[in-house]
């Protein structure tokens, strides 16, 4: 560990000696493993480790950035030299520079499972085989599979800069995933379910993952495309999270500055219904997107983004915060091969008060969405149009499967029309949401 700190220190010193005013080194050491079975036989095994290093320098308020996976001394010297030369090609910008704050390193987020590497390959294979075995036993129409997978890995981050920052932390992940394929009347449907956690012990039971995947694929068999209509729409937690991801993109402080988001000029204004409360939490214990620090070394926070429909803050990194003349919200994200960019940590719509059945029960005729397709959210205008599939709601009950539909509206209108928010929030990934209902959207079909 100290080796990488002394390496960083050497690089920073060299950069300053070569004329940089400020320098930062970001190192990432990672391990990944993949086990895949298909039809209960092993199909893929992958195991590897890798490392990489990024050097970011400022000289006369100009930015230069280089990265490499080669840690040889002569090569690193060239990398520093090259970053300084590149900085001469960029524009001076008074807001450029490293953050001044130095981290309070005390926070423990329990992001690393030291027992993960002890799990035998044979056990991982067993788990994958078990998921597929359960899939096939659930329903005889499930007669094929794209496979079952166990991915895990870890990464150690070192970040050091010429303002005295020296930080390192380690995190791990494990991911179970299976993809059943079912057939009925010569038509195929595939679907999936998963569990993603920091710690192995926290993963959902493979049996339950498989049963959920099986249920998701079976209920889509025989799907039809109904006629075009304007109806109430319910997003299940997975598709709800996808929509909330659009909100995250729209509150990016850089986009706000460039006026290239539909949420520009909306700070401290009501942009959503009072049911909507969104938080961004970098410090959630065991959180899938938690980190003690952001990509520039600032301590992360747990903050309100939207409170009872009112937009409380945009997200900023050091550069955009200086430009906006406010405190950074510590939302810089990065890997070793990129400069910091604004992003969220555990970004989620808070649970509301309604059980999902009550939300569905409130609708006479409507669309319960379980999957979205395409790239139809325009952050600049808020125009929203996506391919969608799911189940049709009739008289308060989920009835027949539907597919081949698109849903369209404007994201601002959608936020304002969120009528009911479910009490079923679980943290499934970096972005999470409970079930919610939008009072009306255009659902285009046949």
């Amino acid at each position: 560990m100290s080796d990488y700190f002394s390496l960083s220190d050497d690089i920073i010193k060299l950069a300053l000696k070569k004329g940089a005013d400020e320098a930062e080194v970001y190192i990432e050491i990672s391990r990944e493993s993949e086990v895949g079975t298909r039809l209960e036989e092993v199909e893929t095994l992958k195991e590897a480790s890798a490392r990489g290093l990024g050097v970011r320098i400022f000289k006369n308020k100009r930015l230069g950035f280089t990265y490499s996976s080669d840690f040889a001394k002569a090569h690193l010297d060239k990398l520093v030299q090259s970053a300084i030369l590149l900085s001469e090609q960029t524009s001076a910008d008074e807001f450029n520079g490293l953050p001044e704050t130095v981290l309070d390193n005390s926070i423990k987020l329990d992001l690393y499972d030291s027992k993960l590497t002890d799990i035998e390959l044979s056990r991982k294979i067993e788990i994958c085989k078990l998921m597929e075995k359960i899939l096939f036993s659930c329903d005889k129409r499930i007669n094929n599979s794209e496979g079952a997978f166990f991915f895990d890995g870890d990464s150690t981050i070192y970040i050091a800069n010429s303002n005295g920052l020296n930080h390192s932390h380690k995190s791990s992940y494990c991911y179970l995933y299976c993809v059943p394929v079912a057939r009925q009347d010569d038509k195929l449907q595939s679907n999936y379910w998963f569990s993603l956690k920091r710690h192995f012990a926290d993963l959902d039971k493979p049996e339950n993952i498989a049963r959920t995947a099986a249920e998701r694929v079976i209920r889509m068999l025989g799907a039809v495309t109904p006629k075009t209509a304007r109806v109430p729409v319910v997003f299940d937690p997975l598709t709800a999270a996808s929509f909330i991801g659009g909100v995250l993109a729209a509150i990016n402080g850089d986009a706000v500055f460039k006026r290239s988001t539909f949420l520009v000029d909306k700070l401290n204004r009501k942009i959503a219904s009072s049911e909507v409360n969104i938080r961004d939490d970098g410090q959630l214990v065991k959180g899938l997107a938690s980190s003690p620090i952001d990509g520039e070394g600032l301590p992360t926070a747990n903050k309100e983004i939207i409170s009872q429909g009112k937009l409380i803050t945009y997200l900023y990194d050091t550069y955009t915060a200086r430009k906006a003349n406010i405190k950074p919200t510590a939302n810089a994200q990065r890997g070793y091969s990129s400069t910091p960019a604004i992003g969220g940590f555990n970004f989620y719509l808070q649970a509301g008060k309604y059980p999902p059945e009550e939300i569905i029960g409130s609708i006479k005729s409507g669309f319960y969405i379980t999957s979205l397709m395409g790239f139809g959210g325009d952050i600049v205008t808020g125009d929203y149009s996506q391919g969608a599939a799911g189940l049709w709601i009739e008289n308060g009950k989920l009835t027949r499967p539907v597919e081949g539909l698109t849903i369209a509206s404007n994201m601002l209108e959608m936020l304002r029309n969120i009528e009911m928010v479910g009490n079923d929030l679980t943290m499934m990934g970096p972005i999470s949401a409970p079930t919610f209902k939008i009072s009306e959207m255009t659902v285009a079909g046949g």
Partner: protein
Amino acid sequence: MGKNIMMSNMNTGDMDREIDQLKQALVPEIIERLLAIALRRDGDFAEVYAEYAIINAVELEENKLRLAQTGIIQGVGIRVISGEKTGYAYSDSLSFDHLQRAAQTASYIADKSQAKAIKAINVSPSQTINLSPIETYPTQVEVKQKTDLLWRANETAYAADMRIKQVSASFGDSIKFYLVANSHGLLIDNKESISRINVEVVAEKDGRRQSGYHGGGGRVDFSFFDSFTPEAIAKEAVRMAIIKLDALDAPAGLQEVVLGNGWAGILLHEAIGHGLEADFNRKKTSLYSGRIGQKVASELVTVVDDGTIPNQRGTLNIDDEGTKTTRNVLIEKGILKGYLFDYLNAQLLKTKSTGSGRRESYKNYPLPRMTNTFMTAGDMTSDEIIRSVKKGFYAKSFGGGQVDISNGQFVFEVTEGYLIENGKITAPVKGANLIGLGPQVLEKVVMVGNDMKFDTGVGTCGKNGQSVPVGVGMPTCKISEMIVGGTQIEGASMTGGKV
């Protein structure tokens, strides 16, 4: 459509030295030893893939040259195949110890528990034919020459219209050198260059904002940007943004649809291309499984995937398994002719690779992928096609798309669309998606234009987490009906309400 930009600036002298070092770390004797170690547990096939890449980017935003960056990627991936099973390991270190460990790790896929004596393997070098000769690699030119392109685009865009409030421009280029060797004795290496310019603008009028995008490139010489100029690109981006400012909301529901030529080929990529990748068909999870020789599209439709077209973004001299790329007819006059094969799937289905084994980097094992996918030209003019439509939707430019392999549903985003009324293109509309079922939509192709054109070189395709550059192409073409996903409903429709 991935718009993330990459960049770097090392000079090519450095690059040649680094490539030499890579080759020295992987001389034939070393490769032969690694392959032998990889096969010690009786695997059927072993492969060494070594890569060195330089990736550069420059970005201009808000009238400032914000970023200039350069990156190096280097590493070796070792693959072992045993029956249907794949073992994979990689190392970013070139030391023999690390490579040996990777070979051992990959070897475990073959489940013979007893390590066998090492079998001798001999590799012999073969030559690559360069399909996209380049005199001046974009990666080789001074950074300033690239930033000049961005400043020119920036100036043109702001000058083009008072309503333009933001301009972002970027240039990315990379050179990737790779060497592939395998237990059949292959040893081949290849160098591929790729570059791309992007211009994005935001226009504002009466508090309404719209963005416009244009860009492109390919496996081209830097002089390509003398004719594909930043001025022309900027003007096109501005034109799109300004048109959208006054666009109507898109119609919703079934419409007669005319697709513009070029990037509309993303329809083929999504509607049928992925479904013909051999892995899905071997596993029988694609709706096109077992349908060779059957009619899957209208007889006007011939679809080709061709990795050999000079300078196209999806072109490769050899694929990432060292197989020469080819021209593959996928659909001929509506009849399904073939799939896209990598080595593994070709082996299992007892046929030959079509040169379609691609991977994002040494960290990934190859998968069957598309290269440049296009529909061949028909004989109608685009005017004739538009004139034939009484009431419909003209989709001129597109954004990204996605497909579900099993049920065939695909969707793609329209970034520039118009209404067609009485044979004429009329009002611009915004915010539409097109959705359909692959075989149904291809069956409904009723007119094909004579104006087949490739996209400008902007496509990036994702599959199983791996991104690779691709090209698409399409003549203007009419689809008798397709679902347009807008917000505006005409005439009678059903509405729902609360219980």
